[in-house]
């Protein structure tokens, strides 16, 4: 009997770990573009996730323009549409603020402009969190869909042990994977993608090759913002959120990107997947309040145990 319960718990944790992990993977790709490839330290990435959630919420619920699609389809279309909205927001953010402390302006400066980026994005993060509180209020929200409260049952596998796959998460997971693959193909095989990667990797050289790096940066930053926002919209279907939710996830995103190896889109996805998986599995042994603390401990362990190695270029040339 106990064994049955244990098996059921473990299997469900694994299933939740994989589905949620894929969504985390998408979320991490967004930061992977900005931090991993463009090397901009964006403190406000969690707030972009939060904006994605609220964008989706306002598109879908109440008098939202997508309400006509009904509660089964609208939440996922809303999540996808949150992408372009936050893309535009991110591109503007880059144009007016981030560009002043990153890119060609700071290459070769003492710390590659990281100090300025940390400070400016900290400011953006404060404004978005607290501005969100003013605009959206503090009541926890969720994008309601009946799918969130129904599940596909697999089993019974062993005795009465059954795996429940939450339908909302399952669809969200599928959308996340499709989005991630599409983005990967675009970046890998299109002209735009190549220009973006070139500009991000070495802005000086890219300029000489005739790439408009300012524009490329803007698009890349926007893409990074939009991708994380889509993940946010997807998460909004199964999770209640408020303006301060970004703080919990910014750490998860950095864990994933660092774990997956800087500078790699696929790496960021696998990193995010791993972190999500570990987080869900920690639910088996840890009380709920400690799960969030566990994420920070995992993050610290990742960056402390692998300060180099996974980090790409780290050695300073003397």
């Amino acid at each position, binding site marked *: 009997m106990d064994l049955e319960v244990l098996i059921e718990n473990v299997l469900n944790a694994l299933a939740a770990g994989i589905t949620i992990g894929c969504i985390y993977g998408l979320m991490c790709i967004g930061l992977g573009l900005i931090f991993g490839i463009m090397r901009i330290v964006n403190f406000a990435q969690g707030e972009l996730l939060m904006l994605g959630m609220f964008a989706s919420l306002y598109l879908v619920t109440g008098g939202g323009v997508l309400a006509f699609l009904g509660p089964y389809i609208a939440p996922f279309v809303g999540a996808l549409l949150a992408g372009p909205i936050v893309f535009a927001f991110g591109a503007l953010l880059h144009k007016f603020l981030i560009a002043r402390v990153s890119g060609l302006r700071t290459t070769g400066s003492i710390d590659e402009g990281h100090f300025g980026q940390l400070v400016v994005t*900290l400011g953006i993060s404060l404004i978005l969190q607290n501005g969100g509180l003013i605009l959206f209020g503090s009541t926890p929200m969720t994008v309601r869909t009946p799918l969130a409260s129904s599940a596909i049952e697999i089993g019974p596998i062993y005795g009465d042990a059954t795996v429940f796959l939450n339908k909302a998460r399952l669809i969200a997971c599928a959308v996340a994977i499709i989005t991630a693959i599409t983005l990967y193909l675009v970046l890998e095989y299109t002209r735009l993608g190549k220009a973006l990667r070139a500009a991000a990797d070495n802005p000086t050289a890219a300029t000489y090759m005739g790439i408009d790096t300012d524009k490329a940066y803007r698009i890349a930053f926007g893409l990074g913002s939009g991708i994380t926002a889509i993940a946010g919209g997807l998460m909004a279907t199964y999770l209640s959120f408020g303006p301060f939710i970004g703080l919990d996830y910014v750490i998860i995103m950095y864990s994933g990107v660092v774990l997956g190896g800087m500078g790699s889109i696929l790496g960021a996805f696998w990193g995010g997947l791993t972190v999500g998986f570990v987080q869900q599995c920690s639910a088996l042994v840890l009380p709920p309040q400690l799960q969030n603390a566990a994420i920070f401990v995992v993050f610290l362990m990742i960056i*402390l145990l692998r300060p180099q190695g996974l980090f790409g270029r780290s050695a300073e040339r003397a």
Partner: protein
Amino acid sequence: MRYGSAPRLRRDLITLVIVSVLYLGASLFVTNSYYQLIMTLVPVWAVFGVSWNILSGYGGQLSFGHASFFGIGAYTVTLALVYWNLTPWLGIPLGMIVAGLAAILIGLPTFRLRGHYFALAMLAYPLAILYFLQYLGFQEMSLPMHREHPTAFLEFTNPHYYTVVAVGLLIVAVFVCMVVENSRFGLALLAIRQNELAAEAAGINTRLWKMRALVVSGMIAASAGGFYACVLLVVTPDSVFGMLVSAQAVVVTLFGGVASVWGPVIGAAILVPLAESLNAELGNILPGIQGVVYGVAIIGIMLASPDGLFWTIRDRFFRPRAPAPLPVGLAAGAPKAGEARGRGSLLLKVEGLSRSFGGLRAVSGVSFEVNAGEILGIIGPNGAGKTTLFNLLNGVLAADEGSAVLSGQSMLGRKVHGVCRMGVGRTFQVVRSFPRLPVLDNVIIGAYGAGLADAEAIGAAAHALERAGLSGLAGVAAGQLTNKQLRLMELARALAGGARLLLLDETLAGLGREECDDVLDVLTRLRNEGTTVVIIEHTMHAMMRIADRFVVLDHGRVLASGLPRDVVEDRSVIEAYLGKKWAARQDA
């Protein structure tokens, strides 16, 4: 004390007294209890900013998690009062001790990280503590009232007294900061911020100074947090460990002025009343207005004047006077040099030194000897492993195998600053200076690195500047020097540390012919005064002029060594530089 800091210290102390008296005087006229609270909070947040400034402003170790220490202070005071009935007068010092210990625990692993990784890691600590406290059930703790002996428990019926205590706390914190700024502690932190590897190579134990900064900073932050708990009488994990708390320290300091004693005070005096009163007026309609104000403030200041208000105002209205020339005879304070070892005796013996990067053997089985008082030139094509060899010798990289013995002591397995303390100076291919510090301070850092006392260090630095011919530039910021002057300054920095062996990495790179000659003259003079030099250089005519012997490296191996004449006619050397065909044609 640092050179020339006495007048600054005196001026700052007078300002501190005047500002404190004026502030306390003004607070007497405040009758509204809410404004009185703001009058108390301004110094509290200023203290917190001062604490952040020591680690992140002076030392450049950006911490986004200073709420850890603030919160530890607040919770220690609260828990000690609730469970042990310990008065906050003792609870605050206790909280400072706990925070100091926490700083060591946090610093040990976290200082392995640099730059933004350090900043992100620091962010994680307070948030982890926050969730942990929620788990333990310390959600909302109120401080019990002690109506019979209120003062003994840091409780006052008259809110003015809170302001008095807060100002007292600020005076202590600012004073500590002044002492730090004007001592070798502050200079070490400034050096670490501007160029960590250069500081390390100048003999500064960067890890240790950063740790000291974190402990001092954590303790000051805890005092602010502990007193904050007493003022508000209720603490929640969010109100003392939250993101906005950490941000508060960053914001007031950046806004007011980084790495300035007055920065956090100015920032707090402007931003705290602004944010608090907006919160009071509009908090009901616009609940997050405080955070928005802080966000706008730091973005604005970062884009408009990245160093903060204090420096902008100072540069605009109080241009610092041109630095006075160094007083004559300052160099007399230099410690007497020890007996120069017999010229020609063995100083350094390198045997079988190897290092691989993956499959690439960058340095492989290199052996050579350096005799006291000679100039040994190391030449070789690009990628021959010359710089890697230096990095192995001075501890930047660890060797895979081999040995390097400097007059009986092994150089390997030591930290960079440890090698420096053995009397080995190093300069870099790309000059590593502390651009915002005056030349004299740049050089004094080398003397501090050798462990000299203040007066001796100043003397040694002045003497080293004389030897390098830079005395006239002592007061100029290093960022304004020409390439040649920078190269000489790096030399002087190594000399001030009492280096008997100099490792010079392409010291002549990028210099014109005449500048080159000037530097060569200095090097020759140093050699004649007994200093031993190992120099990497590409400029053959220069090397032929000064080097006593050559070691030629190619593909990580020693190709040839000996007298310059013999080496340049060595067939394998010509092949390595110019290719086999060239050598064959020469033969024909």
